[in-house]
């Protein structure tokens, strides 16, 4: 049973780490703000989601599990808001030019 849990954890966390890596590469390589944001938010939300998913089987109690999920939800909320704001600023900067 614990072996199965460990396998799930390793698989999901590795997948999450891959998405983080992809997001970071996108952040560094993409040409402008909007595409960079795209790479960052898509990859980070998914990446963090997978990491949280992978850690859930390791959580000792329901409370710890809920804390993990709420971390993911809060990051989703913050990430979505901030990327909206950044995107709007970037677009305003472009139209001003």
């Amino acid at each position, binding site marked *: 049973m614990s072996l199965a849990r460990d396998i799930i954890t390793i698989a999901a966390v590795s997948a999450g780490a891959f998405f983080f890596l992809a997001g970071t590469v996108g952040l560094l390589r993409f040409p402008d703000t909007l595409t960079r944001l795209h790479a960052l938010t898509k990859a980070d939300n998914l990446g963090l989601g997978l990491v949280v998913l992978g850690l859930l089987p390791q959580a000792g109690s329901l409370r710890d599990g809920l804390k993990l999920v709420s971390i993911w939800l*809060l990051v989703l*909320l*913050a990430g*979505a*808001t901030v990327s*909206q*704001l950044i995107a709007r600023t970037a677009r305003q900067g472009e139209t001003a030019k």
Partner: protein
Amino acid sequence: MNIATIFEIVLAAVVLGLGIWTIAVRETYSATVGFVAYGLLVALIWVRLDAVDVALTEAAIGGGLGGVLLLGAAARLRDGERTVAETPGMVTRVSAVALSALTTAALAGAIVFLPDPAPTLAPTVVGHAWATSLANPVTNVLMAFRAMDTMLEKVVLLLSIIGVWSLAPDNAWGGHPGPRHRADPDGILVFLARLLPPIGIVVGIYIFWTGANHPGGAFQGGAILASMWVLAIMAGLTDTPPVARRWLRFVLVAGPGLFLLVGLGGLWFGTAFLAYPPALAKPLILGIEVAMILTIAATLGLLLAGAPERSVK
């Protein structure tokens, strides 16, 4: 060399890389962003050092409120960047590098050659936990054994508020600190500022409450409450209160004031200044912390807002 050590070396290297970038990068704004990232990663180092209380503080301040403060200043100073052209000469740079490196080397030497086993007060602190019946040793040190430092530090916070306020133009004295923020009422920022504070307030109170026995406490919780307040201010949902308001003054003094009163109670009725009778220690400390979390949240929020700029109409 095991995997944990490798991780630690990589973490230290990334942190130092960010530190170098923060110092060396040309634009002030980028340096600020670099410092925020640096602060968040330093919080990870604190976790690795098994100091979760400090990690929470560092994340809330170094990466959070400190970052907001620095970013806000960088944004307001953007036009001023060109006026500063006095880059130091080669001699200055070389001697600065040499002397900083010398200091680092001396420190590193001192750290590496510290004898083992290291001295510690941990057993003493744990052995005296009966005095407060709180299980978090850091809270015990802050609120009981070194309570004087904590009280004086709250006075330092109050003085920094007075210092910031004293910079107000005379005609704005007593008015609202900082600029009035406006945001699109249907925009995402206002949406976030309506959605997040209820959650944030719960989290802040939870972190404060759990601080009695687990990592957390008044300062970390207060920092979260302050950030919720700042969010609402930035979204234009509320305004900073005028600094002349009596209730505001009470809130800002509540923490150190109650601390002082309880301390004097110990001097008058008990064994010593800032001594708690063991039976009452827990409620007294929690009472002080409730006052402190309010004071801290208000102080941090007002420090972010700055000096009074707009007089009351």
